């Protein structure tokens, strides 16, 4: 795993863990008396689980791709030039990001 992916993994996991674990516990004290407390707690937990699982599948799927994209050559030219500043004709230009 590269550095960007590792940081992403940690950040996103912490985010959804906060929503799915910490928020319901906080609610236990904030909304103590309300009859809807349980409903909101379950909503937080389920949102966190569903969304995290969804993101995780997308992430893990692209971690080790087995096939690559098939692109038109002209598009590759443009992408190389715009995103990476590589000019195959030999004139280098500063990458504009």
């Amino acid at each position: 795993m590269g550095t960007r992916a590792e940081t992403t993994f940690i950040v996103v996991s912490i985010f959804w863990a906060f929503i799915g674990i910490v928020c319901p516990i906080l609610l236990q004290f904030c909304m103590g008396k309300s009859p809807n407390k349980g409903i909101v707690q379950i909503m937080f937990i389920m949102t966190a689980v569903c969304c995290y699982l969804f993101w995780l599948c997308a992430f893990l799927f692209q971690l080790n791709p087995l096939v690559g994209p098939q692109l038109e050559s002209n598009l590759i030219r443009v992408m190389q030039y715009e995103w990476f500043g590589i000019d195959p004709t030999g004139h280098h230009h500063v990458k504009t990001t």
Partner: protein
Amino acid sequence: MGAFFRSEEMTLCQLFLQSDAAYACVSELGEMGLVQFKDLNSDTNAFQRKFVNEIMRCEEMERKLRYIEKELKKDDMKVPDSDSNPKAPAPKEMIDLEATFEKIESELREVNTNAEALKKNFQELTELKEVLTKTQVFFREYGSVGGEQSGLNVIEDAQNALVQEERGGTAVQLGFIAGVIPREKVPAFERMLWFACRGNVFLRYDEITQALEDPHTGDEVHKGVFIVFFQGEQLKSRVRKICEGFRATLYPCPETAQERQEMLKGVNTRLEDLTIVLKQTKDHRHRVLVSAQKEIHNWIIKVKKIKAIYHTLNMCNFEHSRNNLIAECWTPVKVLDQVQDALRHGQEMSGSSVPNILHRMKCKETPPTYFTTNKFTKIFQSIVHSYGVAGYREVNPALYTIISFPFLFAVMFGDTGHGFIMFLFGLWLVVCEKSLTSSKNSNEIFKMMVGGRYIILLMGLFSLYTGVIYNDFFAKSINLFGTSWKFNYTQTTLDSSHSIQMKPEDMFDNVTKSAYPLGLDPIWQASINKITFTNSFKMKLSVILGVSQMLMGVFLSIFNHIHFRHYVYILVQFIPEVLFMLCIFGYLIALIFVKWITYNAHCASCTPSILIHFINMFLMKYTKPNMTEAYNCDMMSPTGPYVQKQLGCDSQTIFYPHQQEIQTALILVALLCIPILLLAKPFILRAQHNAKMRMADGRKQALGATSHEQLVNNEELEGHELKSGENGKTGIEMAGVSSSHVAVAVSINGGTGQTAVTMDEHEEEEEKFDFGELFVGQAIHTIEYCLGCVSHTASYLRLWALSLAHAQLSEVLWGMLFRAGLKMDAPYWGGIIVWAVFGAFAVLTVCVLLVMEGLSAFLHTLRLHWVEFQSKFYHGDGYLFDPFNFKEQMDPTLEDK
């Protein structure tokens, strides 16, 4: 959470109401709307019940009110909307109401009959006036024929005109008839006259331009004036009969012009008088209606409430000895205090001194299911109820549906742009909910959408998120973090071919970037093989999500087993179910994750094909690679020690040590679960039942004599006079089994009586135990579950199918419509063309992608919840709590919709 996790605890109550207080108490309970009355007189028909007279009086009042409403509508006077909620009036006031309605109705009827008579008169006079004026014209014409004879008697003129050929001879007398006939009948009338009188009559006809109003129906009719000349009595009678047949009204028309003038003058005066009288009648009617209009809303509600109360009172038993009405009702346990309050209030209002009694009863009947919902949870609960009402105290799937429904919808809908539009629409509906819910706009579809505003809001919100993960924003991707694929192609490579397939082992930046942080890499949107890539992703995702949801459903059944105290079911039903699912589909998911994490492009040819391995697992077919020790993908990389040929692996060889043993074990466990699921529960239940029977028999024999005494004792206590509570516990410890067990808690009008008595008597359980039926039921359950696991997992692939369809439709709209407009090379007109093309793009996006796809995804999500999720734990065999509630009576009109 308790309220929504399972349905409320309900109790059956007996109410003892004094007859004078009964009406007021029922009125209070109706305002509260929290008790459901049981019909104790279901075997008597409607006419034998006690309050049938009062109900007939109510119906009579309703009839009068309906008449008044109709009259109001005739005059285009609307019933004003008011939010007032008048309480049902006391029985004494009912007589006053009846008198008022009677007075108004009779007045209206009188006014109407008078008006009708006057209008008829008016019409006749108008017609007569027309006849007189028009015949004037006829006669003047004929008068001019004769030239100097213009002043002569018109008959002679006509005579001359008609019989000019006959010179001399006898002077014949011509008669005439004038009248008015509807315009449509004139041609037939003419023909009939011609045929009947053999052409010997002369008809002259002129239309009345002003349309006349038919007094009875109020329609407009067009009529015309006619005058028929004939000779002789025979023709006269014939013409008269024909006129009668055609419903022509005949008017006496004087012959001389002067008489006609006088008659015309008289008619005009009478017409003027009549107009004044008619106007006054109309004003009077209007006054009566205006005074009724103010009150009619309240009256209708009051009458409806009275009728409802008497219907409810009819369901109660009347006990003569104590002048009591006995009612049985279901009510949630937690509102018992409110019910007590209502009873006390009713007693105060009716001025009765004897308190009413509320009596809790236990019974074997299944109570109704009641969920307390607020405006947010109502829609989700109704979605679940549409399939089947939850059984009493069963776990409620609606709690989880709040999130899982929008989430699965969003997986199928997955576009940020469309999701955002849907979110905005839901937001508008929610923000304006007060005005939208109370408006009387009767468009059914819009009302449904307003009812579902929270679900639309959530669906839009989740679609925003899934659109970000799918990286789909109106069919375009957003490059937020920089693609993980790197480029270093030379000019020659790029020139050599039209398209290039990038190899992940070279072009994928594994070192600094690796996987794209948020969703799918933006490079894929532009690639030619995008669909192959996303197919693989979405199919696996669908299976993962599906198995997760099904597992959640199976785990929810634990709560049911624990609550209903069927602990043995956990062992015998839940564990085999979970093992079966986990061993087969849990293993599949584990394989998916392992392949994602451990295999990369360097050993692409050795990566196991999950499909093949899964099939081989069932066929027990295993191929071994050349190398026996474990290897991993990095060993095959350009820097690693091995080469593929050396390892002799392909997509079908086993890829981790002891794979064969583990997989065989899993299959065996799963197969073992099936007979356990099938056989264990019926046999265990039968053993339990037999043990209970033996115990019951044993006890019965032991207590021969004493039980009779208990029977007598208990029967006395069953009566309603529970003043003392000391003989509660006497016979019970001794009798293990005796007659009816009814646990009773008595509370008198909330608070004063401390006489809470509980007695325990056990009911003899004569339930039938049908082993055959149980066995067949369990067999069906087993087959359904095991086959269902497989078919439902496949069914979740619709998550993939619909999201693919949505993405493709979206791409078509962009590529073939909007992009075509943008690519045009017209310098100034291009702007206008783009404007028009965007209009088409927007309309199609909303109609096809939002409405059609939205409804389609909604339907599929509904199906996934109803069938795949709920079949794992939900029974749905209850009936809804239907409280006696006045809120339904608030509709201020008696018309049937």
